[in-house]
Every structure is written in C-alpha cells, then in structure tokens.
C-alpha cells in the first residue's frame, strides 16, 4: 500500500522515518507469512518426502483447491460478511454439471456455463437477502448451506438413483474441457495441478482489485463502516452482492476443478470446507468485523492448511491432529488480529 516514493517536499519532519521492517510488520498478512514459513521449515526438517518433488506438488495441489475459495471468502470478510455456503457450492456446481451431462446428455460446455450461472444466482440471492432484510449473513448463508447440502444429496438421488456422478469421462468433449480445470503441468520436475495456477492468478487478481481499484476501496469501506460509505456514495448493495457472487463463483471453479480432476463428485463434496475457508482468511489477517485483511494473507492461510495436511501424512501422525492444529492457529490468529485492530483504531 505504501509503495509510493515521497518527493522531497512531502517528507514531514515530524514523522520519524519508518523503517521498512516496521512498514512490513504492519501488513495484515505478516502473521500468516511467518506461520507458513515455520510450518514449511518444520516439515522440511522433520520428514523426507515434504520437500521432494512429489511432496511439493501434493501440498500445493491441496492448498490451491482450498485457497481459491479462501481468497474469495477473504474479500467477503473484508467487506464485512460471512459465507457458510461456499463449501456446499463446490458440490452443487460439480453435481449440476455431472447430472446435466451424464443423465440428461446436455452439452458439456453449456452445462459448465449453466452451473456458473446457477452458482452466481445463488450467491446474488445470498447477498440480496442479507442486504434487504438486514439479517446477519452468518444466519442467511447457514440457511443456504443446509438447503444446498440437502438438495445436493436428495435431488441427485432422486434423479440418478445414487449420490455420486459416474461415467463423467465418457461425456462427449470431456477431454476438450478437462485440461482447463483438471489439467496438470510440470515445473522444475514437479508435476502439479493446473489449479495451482488458478490459485496464483486469483490471489494476484484479488490483491490488485483490493488495493488498486475503486471496487477494492469500496470493499474496505463497506466492511469498515457501512452507513458512512453509503453516505459518501459507495454503491453498497452492488459491492456486497458482488462479493457474495464472487465467493459463489470461486466455489463453482473449485467444483469444476474437482469434477474434471477426479471425474466424479458426490453429495458430500465440499461439505465442511466452508469453515476451512474462513479459518484461512482469518489466519491470513482478516478481521471478523470487516474492513481489514488481505487476499495474500488468505492464500498463505491456505498454504499453511495444505502444508500441514500433507505434512502430517508424511510424518505418519494421525491425520485428526490437523483439525486440532487448525483450531490453535485460528485462536492465535484471532488474538493477533484483535490486537492489530485495537492499535489501528486507537485514538491518539
């Protein structure tokens, strides 16, 4: 944010020159960067496979699938809202494409686009309900979460008679679209999923939007002080609804990645991940009250999640420790964030 070089006349003698270190330490993503580094070093030293070519690929893959939605959720949280329906949205969009193509024989391109439209519509609906009723987004999206979770299983069973999509790779043109979402590439001998590139691109775009565009300014504003931003002419409804649509769209993307990578999704796909996304965003420095946070931080949070998940496997520990670790990370992050906010808001 503070990259501009001040010209000579702008330098104020009352300002003690802030060192680069202090400036960096004030960024919201610092905590998660340090934590990510520690986790990385720990598993690198403790296990052999972690830094191996296949190891890096594995934890980057799992980080990327979480990270894509986590970054979108971070934007929404900076905008002052929650979305608990993101996890099931992954399943919903995957199932939609699966059912429409394998059962009804719909063109796969049409199905993918229709699923995106459906996801964006549900996202917009979340946003409009929250804004028009003034209810907390936590409750509204909790409702959407349960509706989608139920519909995912029940409707799929009703239509195709089972809860998992099968025969996806037999659908015409599957091979044409598969590389876009489920492809892989090699870098320095490490093979990884294309989702890693999606993840990087989305993190970069989100950061650019947040810090350098008008909508980004509005996201911070509506999250920081809703009424005030309305008074100065920030398009409140459009900004918030746009954010809900972004999280839904990110859910769709991960749904497509899951479907085209593994050729199947089922009724339980994505359920439970909504909390992981939120944890990643909070670990990345987002305030639960909105108005503060970073997309890069959420990406680092996702990286911590992916590294820990695979690291625990390589260390041959019980994988249930992952949840306990996430809980500790979350509490630690909330405490740090709270302290940061108090400092930022404190009157002189």
């Amino acid at each position: 944010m503070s990259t501009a070089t001040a010209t000579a006349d702008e330098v104020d003698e009352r300002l003690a020159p802030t060192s680069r270190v202090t400036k960096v330490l004030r960024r919201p993503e610092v905590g998660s960067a340090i934590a990510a580094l520690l986790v990385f070093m720990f598993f690198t030293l403790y296990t052999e496979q972690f830094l191996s070519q296949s190891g890096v690929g594995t934890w980057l893959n799992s980080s990327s699938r979480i990270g894509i939605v986590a970054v979108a959720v971070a934007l929404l949280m900076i905008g002052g809202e929650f979305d608990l329906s993101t996890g099931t949205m992954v399943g919903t969009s995957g199932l939609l494409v699966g059912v429409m193509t394998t059962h009804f024989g719909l063109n796969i391109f049409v199905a993918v686009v229709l699923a995106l439209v459906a996801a964006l519509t549900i996202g917009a609906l979340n946003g409009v309900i929250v804004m028009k009723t003034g209810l907390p987004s936590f409750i509204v999206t909790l409702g959407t979460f349960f509706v989608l979770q139920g519909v995912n299983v029940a409707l799929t069973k009703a239509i195709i008679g089972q809860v998992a999509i099968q025969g996806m790779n037999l659908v015409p043109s599957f091979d044409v679209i598969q590389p876009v979402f489920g492809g892989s590439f090699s870098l320095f001998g490490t093979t990884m999923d294309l989702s890693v590139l999606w993840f990087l691109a989305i993190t970069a775009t989100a950061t650019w939007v947040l810090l350098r565009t008008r909508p980004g300014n509005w996201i911070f504003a509506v999250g920081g002080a809703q009424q005030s931003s309305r008074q100065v002419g920030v398009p409140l409804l459009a900004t918030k609804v746009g954010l809900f649509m972004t999280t839904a769209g990110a859910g769709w993307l991960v749904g497509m990645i899951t479907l085209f990578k593994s050729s199947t999704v089922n009724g339980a796909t994505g359920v439970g991940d909504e909390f992981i996304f939120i944890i990643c965003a909070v670990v990345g420095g987002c305030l639960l009250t909105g108005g503060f946070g970073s997309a890069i931080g959420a990406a680092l949070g996702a990286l911590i999640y992916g590294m820990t998940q695979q690291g625990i496997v390589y260390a041959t520990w019980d994988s249930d420790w992952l949840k306990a670790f996430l809980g500790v990370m979350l509490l630690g992050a909330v405490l740090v964030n709270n302290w940061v906010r108090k400092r930022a808001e404190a009157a002189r």
Partner: protein
Amino acid sequence: MSTDKAGTSQPDMDRDGASAEDAGHEGTGRAAGGETPSLPPPGTAIIEVTDIGKSYGQVIALSDVTTTVRTGEVTCVLGDNGAGKSTFIKILSGAHEHSQGTFVVDGVSRHMSSPRAALALGIATVYQDLAVVPLMPVWRNFFLGSETTKGFGPLKRLDVDFMRRTAKSALADMGIDLRDVDQPIGTLSGGERQCVAIARAVYFGARVLILDEPTAALGVRQSGVVLKYIARARDRGLGVVFITHNPHHAYPVADRFMLLRRGRSMGDFPKAEMPLDELVKMMAGGAELDALTDELDRSLPDSEADNDKETPAEVQER
C-alpha cells in the same frame, strides 16, 4: 461537472458513468489549485428561504422560518433539542421536501427531493457521524466514493499518488497539517476528523456547507480547532450553515443567527443586532429561564424535587 460531485454523498451517476471521463484525472481541473470555482463575490445570497415549513401529517415540525445563506458568511442555526434544527437541515440538504414557503437557490425557486439534487447545486452536508471509515487511511477516506482513476478497461486503477498528494494539499489549504495521510483516519482526534470531512466537501466543489452540530462531541480545545476551520471555509467564500445548540460556539464565527424554538423561528438577526448575552437568554427562553431559576431555588432547600416531576421534562423539551 464540478458541482455534481460535491460533498459528502456522491451521486450515482458518477460511479456508473465514470468510464468516459476517467481517462484523465477527474479531479485535476477542479479545486486542486486551491480555489473553488464559480463562487460569486462574498455577500451574494445563495440560499434564501422564506416562511419555510414542514409538516408530517398533523405534526407541524417547522414553520415560518426565514433566513439567508450568503457566500463568505456563516449563518448559525441555534436551538435546543427538539427545536426543529434537524428538520431544517433535512430541508436544506434535500433529504426532505418543504411543505410551506419558498426555497430559493441562486434566484430560482426549488423543491429538492433528494440529497443528490442538493449536491448538484453545491449544497453539501457534513453529518455528525462524518461519514468516514475509521480503519481506512486518510487519503482513501478523503476520496471515498469519488476515487480518481487512471488507465482503461481492466487496467483501470486508482491513481494513488495523485490522491495521496491531493488529499495532503487540500487539507493543507484548509490549514489542516497532517503528519501522514496514510494513517487510519480512526487515529485522528474528533476535531481533526471533522476537519477532514469539511475539507473533503470543500474540495469536491461545495458552495454551501451545512455542518450538523460539528462541535457537539468535542472538548473545548477541539471545538476551537473546528471553529477555526469553519472560519477558513467562510474566508474561502463558501456559505456556511452552522447548526449548534451552543451559543458560545456560534458567536465567534457567525455573521447572522437564526433561532429556532419548538419548530418556530424566533427571528433572523445579523450579528450586529445581537449581543452574546441576549443570544444566550433568547436560546434559553428568556422569561422561562428566570422562572426556572426561581423554581429550582425554591425546590432545592426543601428537597421536594419529587413534587415537580414534570419540570425536567419540560425543560428538556425546550
């Protein structure tokens, strides 16, 4: 183009139709040089209200109010709680339409139906909550809702350097010397924040500045700072409407006083005709204040406050 960007609430058209004009700096042509354009010479009446009133159904919230807002002058609207100050501001700022009397802006009779319409005429209102976002830097707050951009299409981005520089210089023009426009505005004191809100309205082309109780929540020294900036805005040729219930804050900066009591105007006086003690007395209700003094004198020694339960309510209402 300059006036419809005015002030504290930004018209929709600006953000929706921003594409064409965003090629350059939206703000450069305007107040950046330190002068608000198209201001008539000091003393010219911008707003003239005559016997203006507002009723909500059976309730008459305001009636028979007459006053003038001139460039380079401060018109003080004084009144206790419930006197009709809020209603008066709402009419001036376009939030509510008046139901009686005439509301003339620049010689043309108007019926303003929205704050946007008022803004388009250069009438900007700084509300008590100031419309700032505490966690955001000063410069982002200054331009919030009216951000300057550069570039085209997907590369359209905030012109950060320009906004940072302009916020600093616009604040300096108003005599507000900030150490760092990158600090969150929440770290500024209440008076400083008030001043940023005033400077923002001035920069975005306000000709008339309506200040809703700007000193209400401030301490003595901070109030003094804000009064100084009100004077500064006046000296730059703006018409200022200063709403307050504190005659001691009103007196030093005001050029004329308009007193409200129970929804009615008690008159519109130039400063020359109104000494401070007279103003205080009129505000408190003159004879009623004397009666109240007597009453309190009597009730205190006997500790019979309970017998006079309606007195405090009555006092508050006035």
